[in-house]
Each structure stands twice: as C-alpha cells, then as structure tokens.
C-alpha cells in the first residue's frame, strides 16, 4: 500500500494545451504508465457500461433537476460514473504503483495521498486554437467553439465534484504554460520540478 517511492502525478489541462501529449512523454521518460480517459472508459466497460453510453454521460456534472439522492444513493448517471472513476483512481493509488493521471478530477481525488504532484497545463489561446484546428481538421471558428465547450465542461465537472476551482493557482504544485516550451520543454520543466520536489519533500526516499 504505502510506497515511499510511489510517483503520483496528476495532470489537469486546458483543451488544446498539449497536456495529454506532455503526460504521454513524461510517462515515457519516467517509465510509468499514463492513466487517461481510455483506461477510465475500459474500467467502466468492465462494469457493464456500453462505450457509447459512457461517452454520453462522461465528464458531465450532475443535473439536480433530473436526479435525486436518498440515503447516500443518487440516480444521477453522471455522478455514478464520476464516482466510479474516482474510486478507480483511489484504488490505483492504493496499489502503491506509480502513474500519471490525466484529467477527471484526479488532482482532487488524490489530494491527500503523500507526495502527489498536481500539475495544471495551460497555453496561449491562439496556440490552443491552432493545435485543435490541426489535430481535428477544423476551421478556426470551429476550433475556438470546441475549446470553449470543452473547457466549460471541464470547469463545470470540476466544480460539481470538488471543492476547488479548476485551474485555481493555489491548488496546484505547478502550472505550466506550454506555449513557449512546447511538449519537450514542458516535460523537462516538470521533471526538474519532480527532482527538486523529491529532494525537499519528506515523503520521498532515494
């Protein structure tokens, strides 16, 4: 369970900020797995949920008018799915293995685990639009609109299930703007931070 060498990194990111690519590269460099949407979906599928169904209800806040809670039970599918993902995140952390978790409020779920490093990846708006347009083959207005929608969803989701604001500076250990440094530079910056953190933090053993 408790493993002093466990590396727990959570990456929260703005849409189009290259956060996922940074997480993948960081995982490769550190030799630890990246737990992301695909794995969360796989877990939900193993629970019997249909993939299309998961997509429909994933990363959405609870609708208080269309769902209720009684005696610790809620019939909000969004909340049940979210809680399932949060439990999965904690279960993984409890194994003592190291990993990087991308999105899905992992920064909040794992906040009390010793040595967890919470990172927020941001980028300049123009760069984000350019990345999203290129990745998804979209026009600039379409990419802008998609970014707005995705960020709004992430903000609402975070607000619904945590007590901190998404992107709030004092909640994270490190906030990285990937515009200047790109994927490689951001990864190097994070790795440097981890090294310094290891030296300072009593939670780490060499």
């Amino acid at each position, binding site marked *: 369970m408790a493993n002093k060498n466990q590396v727990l990194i959570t990456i929260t990111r703005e849409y189009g900020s290259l956060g996922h690519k940074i997480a993948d590269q960081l995982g490769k460099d550190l030799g630890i797995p990246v737990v992301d949407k695909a794995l969360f979906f796989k877990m939900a599928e193993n629970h019997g949920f249909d993939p299309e169904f998961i997509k429909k209800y994933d990363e959405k806040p609870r609708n208080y008018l*269309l769902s*209720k809670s009684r005696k610790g*039970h*809620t*019939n909000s599918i969004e909340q*049940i799915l979210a809680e399932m993902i949060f439990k999965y995140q904690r279960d993984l952390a409890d194994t003592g293995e190291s990993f990087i978790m991308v999105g899905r409020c992992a920064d909040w779920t794992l906040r009390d685990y010793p040595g967890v490093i919470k990172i927020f990846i941001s980028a300049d708006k123009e760069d984000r639009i350019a990345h999203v347009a290129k990745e998804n083959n979209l026009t600039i207005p379409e990419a802008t609109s998609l970014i707005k929608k995705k960020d709004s969803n992430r903000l609402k989701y975070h607000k619904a299930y945590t007590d901190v604001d998404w992107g709030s500076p004092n909640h994270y250990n490190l906030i990285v703007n990937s515009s200047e440094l790109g994927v490689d530079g951001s990864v190097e910056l994070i790795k440097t931070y981890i090294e310094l953190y290891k030296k300072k933090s009593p939670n780490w053993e060499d």
Partner: protein
Amino acid sequence: MLIAKISAIIIFLIMFACIVTEAFERHITTLVSGALTLSIVFGICMRSTDAIIRTLNYKSFATLEFWYGGGESSGINWATIIFIAGMTVMVEGMGHAGFFDWLCLKIAKLVNYKTVALLICFMIMSAVLAMFIDSITVIMFLAAVTITLAHTLKFDPIPIILAEIFCANLGGSATMCGDPPNIIIGTALGYSFFDFLSNTGVIVGICLIFTIIYFYLVMRKPLLASENDRPADITYPNAEDAIKSKKGFIAVVIVFAIIVTLLVTHSITEITVASIGIIAIILTSIAIVFAFDFKTLKEVFKKVDYKTLLFFVGLFVVVSGLEETGCLEVVAEFIAKVSGGNPYVMVAIIIWLSAICSAFVDNIPFAATMVPVIQSMAVTTGIPLETLAWTLALGTDIGGSATPIGASANVVGTSLATKAGHPVTWGKYCKYNAPATVIVVSICTIALFVLHL
C-alpha cells in the same frame, strides 16, 4: 396578517426550491426554514406565542391521547416522527439479521429461479413488504438480490427492478405505515391502520392485479428469452447463508410479527402509532442484545436515518406557518371554486394534481401541505374528509412512481441498478413506469368514484 402570509409563502417556496434542487441537505433546509417560520412569521409578524406553542406541539407528549386513544394532531406531528424512528430501528435490526436477503432468496428458490415467476413473486413481495416497511428498505434488499440473481442467471434486471419499485410505491399506499404521506395523513387526521387498509388497501389490491398483468405483458418476452440463454452450470445462492445468527433471525421475526399485529389491531386496542414506535424500539433493542450484543445494537442505531426525522420536524413547522396564517384555506377555496363544488371533479383534481406533483417533487412536503387543505375543503364543501384523505394518499403515493425522481424507492432502485452496470435513464424508466402510473391512477380515480362518492 398579510405580511405574515407573504412571509410564510416565501419561506415555503424557498424551502421547496431548495429541496427540489438539493441545494443543501434536506434536513438542513427544513430546519432552517422552520426556524425562520417560528421567528419571522410567528414571532415578528404575528407576535403570537400561542402559534409557536401550538406548532411545537410539545405538550402533546404529556397527554394520554398521544400514547393511548389517539386523535387529530396539528403542528409538529411527533407521533409520525416517533413511529418512523421505531420502524426504522426495527427494519435495521431485521436487515442486520439477514431477514430480507433470506426471504428474497428463499422465494427465488421456491419458483425454481424462473424469471417470469420471479417477476411476479418479487412484485407481490415488494407490495406486501412495503405495506409495513419503508419502501427504500424494501427496494434496497429486493434490487440487490435481483441484481445478484440477474448476474448469476444472465437476465436483464432492469425490468424486474422497475416493477419492484412500482409495486413498493403501490403497496406503501395500502396502509397507514407504508409511505410517509400516509403516516402524516393518518396521524394528522386520526385514522388507523385498519381505516387505511379497508379503504386505500382495497383499491390497491385491485390495482395490484392490473399492475401484475401490465408488467407481465410488457416484460415477459425478454425475460423468457433470457431463460433460453441461461448457462447450465449455475451455482445458485443459498438463502440460509444470508442469516447471520439464527437466534437473531428468530428474535427479529418475532418483533416484526408483534409490531404488525399491533398495527393491524391498533384501532381496537387504541394503542397509538407513537406507542407502537416506542414498543418497536424497545423490542428490537432487546432482540438485538439478546441475539448479538450491545455493540451490534449501537451499529443498528447508527444506521437510523436521523436526518429524515429532523427533516420532518422542520417541515411540520413550515407547513404550520402556512396553516396558522390561513394560506392553505385559500388553496382549499380555490380548488373548491375550480371544481364548482362538484365532488367528482374535486376528487379528480386532488388525485391527479397530487399524482402529477408527486411525480416531480418530494411527495412528503406536498402531503403535509395538503392535509390542512383537504381539512378545510371538507368543512367548506361537505365532502367527507375520509374520501379526500384516501384520494390524497393514493395520488401522492402512486404518482411518485411515474419518474425516476418521484419517490425515494425510485432513486435507490435506479441507483443500485446503474451502479451494477445496468444504467436506468429517464427514457427507460418512464417507458415502463409512466404508463403504469397513468393506468393505476385512472383505476384509483374510478374506484374512488364508485366506492366513496
């Protein structure tokens, strides 16, 4: 008085909005609203200490009628609260001893695990248990066993769980202790368990037959098909394994039998439901200590939903605010006016209004608010109060089945199914249970016309 009325209405509306949106925990909402009613409506606007004393109703504890004999109640309905507390302790004790799991698994074995037979048996069991036990508990155990059996026998549990939910709400409307609105109606208006059973109970019996036919016709095909796909090498769960202690099991069954007997006969013995609640607490405590130990008793008491009891306390105070300021008389007069004094129209309005409202908002505040309304209507229109009481009970209890948020049993049942990987969407829920609700409320309307007008 106008300011008092406006204040009472504003507090009530804000409370209702907070309950619907779950902005705060339900009991916090009603307790704060109750405190505001006492201080603003009664204290500042009405300057009436008498209204506060009547609402707090603490003097009722010292009266003989509260414990023996019974009668109508106003203000905080302490009898309801004590009774619910007693039944909750008893039900927690029964659950701890493994009674419900044993019963479900035993019945499944008796019908040889045939899915259609399971559907019918679990529907009847849900309705019968909900007559005596709160529907949340009934669904919690029935849905859990249904899911276990579904995974073992490879069938979709959703149709059966939805039918169980519907029947739990239906069965709850048959008796005074089946559903919180009935406890409120019964204790506030002085009706007994037998009064409910011989009025709403008869109508519910008729409705149950139609309900079974409806769910059988709608769900038999997929359930029968699942039997053909059933694997040959199945290890069936053993009912006896559910029993944690044989001694405890027998003890809680005896307590349950005593409480049911006291409830059925309380109009003859004149032992009030408040006394029955206290007896349930004492007997369950003795049974648990006898069969297990004090530590287990502590665990059982810890599981009691105190928040719901506090929710009731605050709610009764807010409704008293509306009652004392005369707001509810206005509602009563309005309904009487709209119906033109025609009792058939009045009954139809009450049952369908109650059903529609209960499908979307909490039926407990609705029922608590409507009790003084029907009292006022009975006085002004001459329609027997009993008729209006049964109409209100059936409408609020059964209407809640129409949507996934209409009643607590729906929330718990759909939640358990979804967590087990069988998500119940609004569409899926309403496809089966909304038509059933319309059919059953229609049958109730006709039955009320024929039997009570």
